[in-house]
Structures are given as C-alpha cells and as structure tokens.
C-alpha cells in the first residue's frame, strides 16, 4: 500500500490478468488442445442438435423470465409493500442455491407426484422435459430479471409518463411509447444475463435432460466422464467457447451495464395499500402468485421433511434393506457437512479477500483491460475450466486445492461486483476528507472505510462462501464425485432414486445457508436503513 493510486490500479490489473491466465485461460486451452488428440469427432448433426437445444431453451427461458418479471418489477419500483425487501433480496437466489436443489425442489413441486399435480389431481410430467428445463431456468433467474428491471425502472422519472399523459396519451399508450423504450437497455441486460446463465446451465439439464436433452455444458461433461472421449469433449467445448465469446462480445455493453444495483426502498414511494382498488387487486394477486411460484418449491421441501422428520434419521442410520447414504455418496453425512464447510470457508475467504483488495485498489479507475478480464469468467464454461484444470494439474496439485482454485476463479466476478457496488456507493470523498486531515492510507482504511463497508464486506463474504457451498460443476468436474460436498451428495442420492434422502439433505443445506445469512445480518448493523 505504498505506491501511488494509479500504480495500484496497474498492479490490480496485472494480478487479475495473471490469475485468470493461469487458472482460466490455460486450463481451457489445455482442454481445447485435445481437439487434435485421440478420440472421435462428434457428428455435425449431433453438435448441431446440442447447440440448437442450448440456444432455444436459453431464449425461451430468458423470454419467459422477463415477461413474468415485468409486473413484479413494476410493483417493486413503484410501491412499498410488505415483503418487498425479500423480493429484491431473492435476486441472489440463482447464485447461492445449488442447481441440484432447484432440481429437487422442482420435482417436489411440479413433478409427477409433486404438490401442483396433487393439488389439481393431475399426473402431468412437468419436469423431465424441455418444459421442465425451461421451468427450472425461469425459476432460477426470474428474480434476477426482477432486480435488473426494477432498478432501471425506479431510475426512470415518473414524470416522463405524466408528460406523455398530459399530451393526450393513455396509460397503456404512454407505457408502450415512453416507458418501455426507456427500459429497453435494462430489458436487454436482463435478457442477456438470463440467456447466458441458461445457455451455460449444467446441473438442471444434467438431471432433467435425460438422454434427450443436453446443453453444450452437459455434453462436454458426458463425453469426458461417461464416454471418456476427450476429443469429443474438446470439440463441444470449442463450439461453446466460440458462441459465448460471440455473445459476450455482442452484448458486452448489456452485461457491463448491470452494476448489481437494486431498486431503492424510497420512503417516498406510495404504499401499495394506497393505490387504486383495481391496481391494488391486480398487483396483490400477481405478487401472491409470484410468491407461490418462488416460495412454493422450497416450502414443499421443508413441508415434506416436517411431515416425516424420521427421514433425517435415515440419513445416518439406513432403514432395513435400504442402501446407506455412505454407500451411495461414498461419505457419511457429517463428512459431507464438514467437507462442504471447509471448502466453502477456504474458497470463500480467498475469493472475498481478492475481491475486496481489487475493489479498493481499483476504485474509480476506468481500465478496459481490467474490466474485460475480471468479468471474463462470467461468460466461460465452468465445466471446461474444471476439466482443463484436471488435465493440467491432476497429480501435481491436490484435488481439493484444485477445486478451491477453480471456484475462486469462477466466482470472482460475482463477489467482486458485490464489493464494488458497496465501495462505489461509499465513493472516495470520505477517504479524501480523512487524508486531508492527515490520516495515512492504512489509517483511512481502518478508521473510515472498514467501519462504513463492514456490512458490504460481510455480505460479500457470505456470498463468496455460499457460492462455493452451492457449486456442483467444479466439484463434480474436478473431483469426479470423489469429493462429496452437499450438491454432489444430493446429485448421487437422486441418481440412486433416494429422493426423500435428497430432500432431507437439501433442507439441511438450506438451513445452513439461511443461518449463514441470518448470522451476517444479525452481526452487522444496517446502514441502509438509517
């Protein structure tokens, strides 16, 4: 911390570039090299089929998520109502909820014997299908779309709409002609993000896709581990990389436009309870349905174990005649918990520390190289990185360490954004004020920044841990199932048709994750609620 501010920005850039070159670019390169190696080259029509599925489900998922998010975004950006904070907070769901638990929750809620089917007396197959994959992706990402749209919407002066109406336009007319065009950048940002996450989806498709559907991500994994055909895997990886680079280049602006902002809880917003009866009725109904859609699947999981808590005992002591968890998962449940927590702690600490250092030292400096590099992992196939890391370092670096390194690299952009949002909101005026008063750079950090950023840091640290906790792709890709963390264990339980055990383990996971965030919330005062 001795060099000048500009110099530190430079160092941050060098560090980021070096880390990502070693642990992101090199592994992917190693995998792609296999295109020229042993194995078969998949048939063009097979590649085309996988590509078409990857694209079509991502487009449909993004489209539906945005349409569903619109009314919620309107409510969040225009009114105050109970539960508003929860909806805004739910936008982080896709990052901290393992895809495998989404799968379990979807099956429990929408599956053949799920809550919805039982409620309506049907037996529809809503999950193990194209529709099921889209459903899960929408479930996963709709809150993200809500956040992006509502943040933009609350930034649009409502007087634009009023002006339009004073010029003779109706309410729907002014929405179509004025508000919607002003929202267009946000719509395109939300669409791009949901599209990208769905395009790169792994866990959901791995389970729901069966033999019929595979995203490129799943195809790479299958070729690598099931068919042991590295060359095919490399071809799929190359195709995927080509397309993601294309998307990211085309939509770079949309992706960068998302500064992780949220719709502010402005006390001047009118209460929903004060809106006109028609608006109120429509909004309340829609929000309720949305809440059921979002909360229902998770509530079902908890409901199931609450109805029969003995299932927890089954996790430790198998029922007579049933296969034990230890046999299926190749680890005891306490082992799973300890291993998950240990990996999450190490990986979370590293990601957080790196993010915090980068955000602080790089504050307020526009550096294109830095910006592009640090967000690069967002558009990169996690499976490819995982397999590449394996190819490069297996036998040299312990597997556990490889998993941690991989997780740090792929979660860095997300955690960095959280820290940066807080750091940027704080600005550097306090720092400048303190330095004018004669404080050293370190004293400023200790006395001014740390206290003011405590909540941001705590939050980012929690997310960093949760992201690692939720990771299945890296653990599965590098560890090949031998490192049994929560998501891997749940995945195996599903594979062995031990659905009730999977539900029980999911509930334990959700409980631990909730405890983590409640702990963070309770130990840091809320500055935003002044």
């Amino acid at each position, binding site marked *: 911390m001795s060099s000048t501010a500009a110099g530190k920005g430079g160092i941050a850039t060098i560090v980021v570039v070096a880390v990502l070159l070693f642990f992101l670019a090199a592994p992917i390169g190693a995998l792609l090299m296999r295109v020229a190696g042993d194995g078969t080259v998949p048939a063009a029509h097979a590649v085309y089929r996988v590509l078409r599925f990857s694209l079509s489900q991502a487009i449909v998922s993004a489209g539906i998520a945005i349409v569903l998010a619109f009314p919620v975004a309107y409510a969040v950006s225009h009114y105050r109502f109970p539960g508003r904070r929860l909806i805004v907070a739910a936008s982080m769901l896709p990052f901290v909820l393992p895809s495998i638990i989404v799968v379990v929750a979807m099956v429990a809620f929408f599956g053949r014997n799920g809550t919805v089917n039982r409620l309506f007396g049907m037996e529809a197959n809503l999950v193990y299908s194209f529709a099921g994959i889209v459903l899960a992706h929408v479930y996963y990402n709709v809150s993200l779309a809500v956040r992006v749209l509502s943040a933009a919407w609350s930034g649009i*002066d409502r007087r634009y709409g*009023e*002006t339009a109406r*004073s*010029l003779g*336009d*109706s*309410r729907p007319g002014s929405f179509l*002609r004025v508000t919607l*065009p002003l929202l267009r950048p946000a719509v395109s940002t939300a669409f791009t993000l949901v599209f990208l996450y769905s395009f790169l989806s792994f866990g959901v498709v791995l389970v729901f896709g069966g033999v019929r559907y595979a995203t490129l991500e799943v195809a790479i994994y299958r070729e690598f581990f099931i068919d042991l055909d590295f060359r095919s895997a490399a071809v799929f990886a190359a195709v995927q990389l080509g397309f993601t680079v294309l998307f990211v280049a085309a939509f770079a602006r949309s992706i960068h436009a998302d500064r992780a902002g949220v719709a502010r809880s402005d006390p001047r917003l009118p209460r929903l309870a004060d809106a006109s009866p028609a608006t109120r009725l429509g909004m309340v109904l829609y929000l309720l349905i949305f809440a059921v859609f979002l909360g229902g699947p998770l509530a079902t999981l908890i409901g199931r174990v609450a109805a029969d808590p003995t299932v927890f005992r089954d996790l430790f002591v198998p029922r007579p005649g049933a296969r034990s968890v230890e046999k299926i998962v190749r680890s005891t449940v306490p082992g799973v918990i300890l291993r998950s927590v240990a990996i999450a702690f190490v990986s979370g600490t590293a990601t957080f520390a790196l993010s915090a250092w980068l955000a602080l030292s790089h504050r307020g400096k526009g550096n294109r190289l830095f910006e592009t590099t640090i967000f690069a992992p967002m558009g990169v196939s996690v499976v490819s990185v995982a397999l590449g890391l394996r190819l490069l370092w297996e036998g040299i670096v312990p597997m556990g360490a490889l998993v941690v390194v991989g997780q740090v690299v792929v979660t860095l952009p997300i955690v960095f954004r959280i820290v940066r949002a807080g750091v940027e909101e704080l600005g550097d005026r306090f720092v400048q004020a303190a330095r004018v008063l004669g404080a050293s750079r370190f004293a400023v950090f200790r006395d001014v920044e740390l206290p003011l950023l405590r909540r941001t840091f705590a939050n980012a640290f929690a997310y960093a841990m949760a992201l690692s906790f939720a990771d299945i792709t890296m653990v599965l890709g590098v560890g090949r199932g031998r490192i049994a963390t929560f998501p891997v264990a749940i995945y195996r339980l599903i594979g062995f048709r031990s659905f009730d055990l999977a539900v029980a383990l999911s509930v334990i996971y959700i409980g631990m994750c909730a405890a983590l965030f409640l702990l963070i919330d309770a130990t840091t005062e809320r500055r935003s609620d002044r």
Partner: protein
Amino acid sequence: MITIRNVRKRYPEFEIILDLEIGEAEIVSILGPSGSGKTTTLRLIAGFERADAGSISVNGRDVTALPPERRGIGYVFQDFTLFPHMSVAENVGYALRVRAVPPAAANRRIEELLELVDLRGFGTRRIGSLSGGEQQRVAIARSLAVDPTVLLLDEPFSSVDEVLRSDLRAEVRRLRSELGITVVFVTHSRQEALAISNRVSVYKGGRVVQTGSPEEIYRRPVTPFVASFVGPANYIRRNSEVLLVRPEDVELRTVRRGTVDGTTDAAGDGKLLVLPAEVEAVEFQGHSYLHRCRLEEGAPVSEGAPMGSGAPMESGAPIAPRGTFFEALHSARLAPGTAVELVCDMSRAWPLPRE
C-alpha cells in the same frame, strides 16, 4: 379560465385547501416557499393528482374526475422531461402521433410549432445535443401541440442560467399574447413572479394567502409573510399599527455623528420619518446598493417605532424586532460604520391589515 373551488388534498404531513380563480389569457404565477403546495396545484389542474374534495373546472368544463390525457392542458416540467429516446420532431409530434394525425399534417404542424419557438430546422436533432434554453423551447412547443387553452409551467426557468432566463420569460409572454392562452407557472423566485405575471398568487402552508397584481402584492401585502416574501421589507410600529416601508422609500443621507435629532421630519409636514443609523453591510445590486443599517439605540422616535427589516414568517405571532436593522437603497456604496440618517417616506408606507 380555471376555477378551483374548495379543493382539498390531504397528505400525511399536511393538507392543501385551495380556492383560486384564474381568468382567460392571464399569466398567473404561483409563488411560495417549498412545500407550500405550489406544484401540487399544477398537478391537480393537470390531473396527475386527484383532489380529495372540491372541484376544478377549465373553461367551464368540470375536469375534476378526468384523467390527464382528457383534459387538454399543456404541462412543462421543471427539467422539461423531453423523451431522451426521441428526436426533437418526435418529441414535438408526440401528441399528434397519439391522436393518429396523418403524417403529412403532423409534419406540417411540427414545423409550425418549431417555428413558433424559433427552432426551425431542429427537428432531427437529438435531445442530448440541445442547450438548456433549446430544451425548454422544445418542451413548450411539445406541450402546445395539443392546442391547449391552458399551459402549466413548473419552475420553468430554474434550470437555465440568468441570461437565458429573461429571454425565455419574454418568449413565454410573447407566446401567450400570440396564442391567447392562459399560463400558470410555479416559481419560488419573487423577481420572476413579479416580472412576468399579471397576477401573483402567494402560497403558504397549503393555502393561498393573497392573490393580486404584482404591484398589489408588493405594495399592499395582506400579511407580513407576503410582504417579506416578495421583497425586502422594513416595519415600523405606529400606535397599534404596523407599517411596511420598502427600501426604495427610505432615503439614505450621510451625516456627522450626533447631529440628527431623530424626531424630525425635515419637510415639516409629518410625511417623513428620520432615523439615525449606522451602515452595517452593503450588497451591490447592479442598479443600486442595498444598505443594511443598524438603527441607533434609544433613538428618540416620535412618530412610530422602527421594527426592523425582515418580518418573522409566522403570521399570528407578534412582530418582534430581529435586531433593529433597516434596509435602504442608495446610489453609491457607503463604507460600513458610516453614520447615516434614514429618511422614510411615510406617505408610501402601507399599514398591514391586523390579523
């Protein structure tokens, strides 16, 4: 013509109760401190807010229950709210597009409107490329596209610089006389209100305190609040009366200390009040200097007791002297500390109505 009758609008913290009559082709300004209900009045007239009680009619038509798009009223917001995703012509033609006016006719009308505000040839420009004054004129042209009989302007001049401001004022006045429409605008600048309106309505705490011509408001205010809000004011108590004396009615003469007896009225006809004082501070105002003077303590005053300048804002409270200062205009700058005598022209003093 706008008639606001007994309109009430309740907010958590305060309530607005309005009665206001605005004649045809008038320029009326609504003047008052922030939070006094000025903008709300415009929003009620435009239909962005619904009154809890009372009625609003425009040209004899009751519009109380109509949505904004059916009131036919032009509205220009403080920062113009030009649609950033449209060109100048698209902004101006917005109302025509909504009404499905055929493109040829719409384009002709857009040309006309741009010409009206002196922006011919600006049609294809992007909003971001316009200066503040140009933006304002586009906003006005846009609001005129609906052929409104009433144009509402919310602090229309506050986001442009001083120089432009007087140009734009002239522009608004010209448009009003050319088109014969009623203009109501909100301002918290007294100069602006007095300069361009033929009537001024002074607000306080959600009520209209006084409505009248600029001269009336300035010279014959009904409360000390109005008196002080529209200009610098000096107050003199005479018997049980409080008299308002504006600084321009106070002549400032330099004297040698101790030579003024304070009682006299130099002309001997009882119309002048002379007060001994000392210059405290001077503000240059361009055409003259506003001198803030401290009155000599215990100055023998026969005709009335000086109250000092700047009245307490709370009506109903007794007028308490905030120090005994008087403000007076003078053509030259006098150094602070200069001994002066203040000659008040009592024939131009205005007795404030008792509250």
